[in-house]
């Protein structure tokens, strides 16, 4: 109940924030929401099914490249481009899942990393298509054929906010459904779920692909936000950042990873203005969080105020 009120207040505040924030701050908030989605997508497999991945940027980047290439080189049509980005992310995760889900633990981490790195190599090497290391600039804001334009900051912010709220609600329904409960069962004891008659591979595979599609959504939005896509979107740095966002916020909680994602984006923004050594600071964050806050922010909230966390 208390959580429900908190969420309602949060949504209202988010909806009203364009009135209070400068356009720079609103842009930052938009980016925070996009990365919150990215972190939530990884949370589906990591937090609920217990499947870590060091290659989650693959689906984010594939979505971003698909949208970017179509919008720049073919046609700037939001519905077509966005849909194609989602299909590309889905196909990629469906393919990678077939290979990666044969493994577990350290092997799963290494294989997802290696597979994502293949895509990074393609984006890096296939210069005439992707622009290589220089990236692909000039991606316009989405043209959706609607009576209003998404070119302005507030309009684009609302687009991202609506996607965020809808996907979060869908996520909530999903993880409370029998499917989501089965994922948690697999995380706790895959053997027991097998004995109970669950085809655990199929559950893990569906979760893997869904997480890939959701990462694709965030990648699609981010390329519109940034107007630019580069191999960095597919890199280990992005993949590992998604992991630390999930852990920092609290793996296996509904909103923890979103909070973790927002916090990391905010920190990057604040710290980068003061020092060139953001990556060093980020590295220290990894060390400190894994050592001192393994349950994340939501774990802290749960300990402090008790009750069921969301």
């Amino acid at each position, binding site marked *: 109940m208390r959580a429900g009120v908190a969420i309602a207040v949060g949504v209202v505040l988010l909806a009203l924030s364009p009135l209070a924030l400068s356009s720079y701050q609103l842009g930052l908030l938009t980016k925070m929401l996009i990365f919150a989605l990215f972190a939530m997508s990884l949370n589906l497999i990591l937090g609920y099914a217990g499947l870590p991945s*060091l290659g989650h940027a693959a689906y984010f980047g594939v979505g971003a490249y698909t949208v970017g290439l179509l919008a720049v080189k073919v046609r700037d049509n939001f519905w077509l481009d966005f849909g194609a980005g989602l299909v590309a992310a889905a196909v990629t995760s469906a393919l990678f899942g077939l290979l990666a889900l044969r493994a577990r633990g350290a*092997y799963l981490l290494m294989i997802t990393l290696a597979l994502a790195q293949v895509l990074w190599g393609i984006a890096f*090497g296939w210069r005439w298509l992707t622009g290589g290391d220089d990236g692909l600039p000039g991606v316009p804001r989405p043209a959706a054929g609607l009576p209003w334009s998404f070119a302005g900051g507030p309009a684009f912010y609302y687009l991202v906010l609506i996607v965020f709220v809808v996907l979060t609600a869908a996520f909530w329904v999903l993880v409370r459904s029998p499917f989501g409960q089965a994922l948690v069962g697999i995380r706790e004891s895959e053997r027991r779920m097998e004995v109970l008659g669950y085809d655990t591979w199929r559950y893990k595979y569906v979760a893997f692909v869904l997480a890939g599609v959701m990462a694709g959504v965030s990648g699609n939005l981010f390329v519109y936000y940034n107007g630019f896509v580069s191999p960095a979107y597919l890199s280990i740095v992005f993949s590992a950042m998604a992991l630390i966002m999930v*852990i920092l916020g609290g793996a296996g909680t509904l909103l923890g990873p979103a909070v973790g994602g927002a916090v990391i984006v905010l920190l990057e923004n604040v710290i980068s203005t003061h020092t060139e050594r953001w990556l*060093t600071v980020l590295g220290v964050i990894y060390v400190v969080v894994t050592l001192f806050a*393994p349950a994340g922010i939501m774990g802290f909230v749960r300990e402090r105020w008790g009750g069921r966390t969301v």
Partner: protein
Amino acid sequence: MTFWAIQTLNGVSFGMLLFLLAAGLSLIFGLMRILNLAHGSYYVLGAYVALSAIGVTGSFAAAAAAGIATVVALGVVMERGLLRRLPRDELPQALLTFGFLLIVGDLSLAIWGGTPQTLPKPAIFDASLRVGPLVFPSYRLFVIAVGVVVGVALWLLQERTRLGAMLRAAIDDAEIARATGINVSALSTGVFAFGAALAALGGIIGGPLLGVYPGADFEILLLAFVVVIVGGLGSLKGAFFGGLLVGLLDNFGKALFPQFALFTIFAPMAIILAVRPSGLFGAR
């Protein structure tokens, strides 16, 4: 003919460097179940420190010692001070070591700058070896020799000595090994330091061939991962033959199909994975 001979030599020497990294990764994982993402950072840090030390001392051997000592110190601090406090779970360990990958990479950039640098090779290897019409750079032969010597020494250590027997026992079952009086804690620190030293050695002897630059840490780590995926984590034999295979594939891939260099490595990896998920020499 010349092309194939030289490319093979290059591939084998690169394979030996990969073996040095993969052997450490494999031993550390085998004993402690730690997936060390900072292993490539040891390689780069060893090379950078040696580069600075060679400017001061002028001696390759002294520089190598300085590089290895620095990296071993970092490794021991990481193992004793940090990794030991974590639960035995791959993910937190991977995240903590990834933090070090970022820190070492970023600080190296601050200290040694962004331009690629090459370690000068010891003067005695300026000569080349002639076999009929073929000319082999002697330094590459030296790198291969180092790899083979390390491989044989590790094999003898593991199979023929008391220390090796203790190590195998601890890898097999740490609990039981501890119960029989083996000091698994000291053994773990030793193995971690040794693995770090091998990676630093790889960076130092690889420095004159490949140079050292920002991003080299992750590049080499990724290839070392492919080696252990192909060869099987925890297997010395797997690290050796996996290293050779990946070194050759990488070299011929880059020489023959520069556009698709990564595919020549990852396609075989995917096939091996599909047929044998635990690698060619993996236990399970």
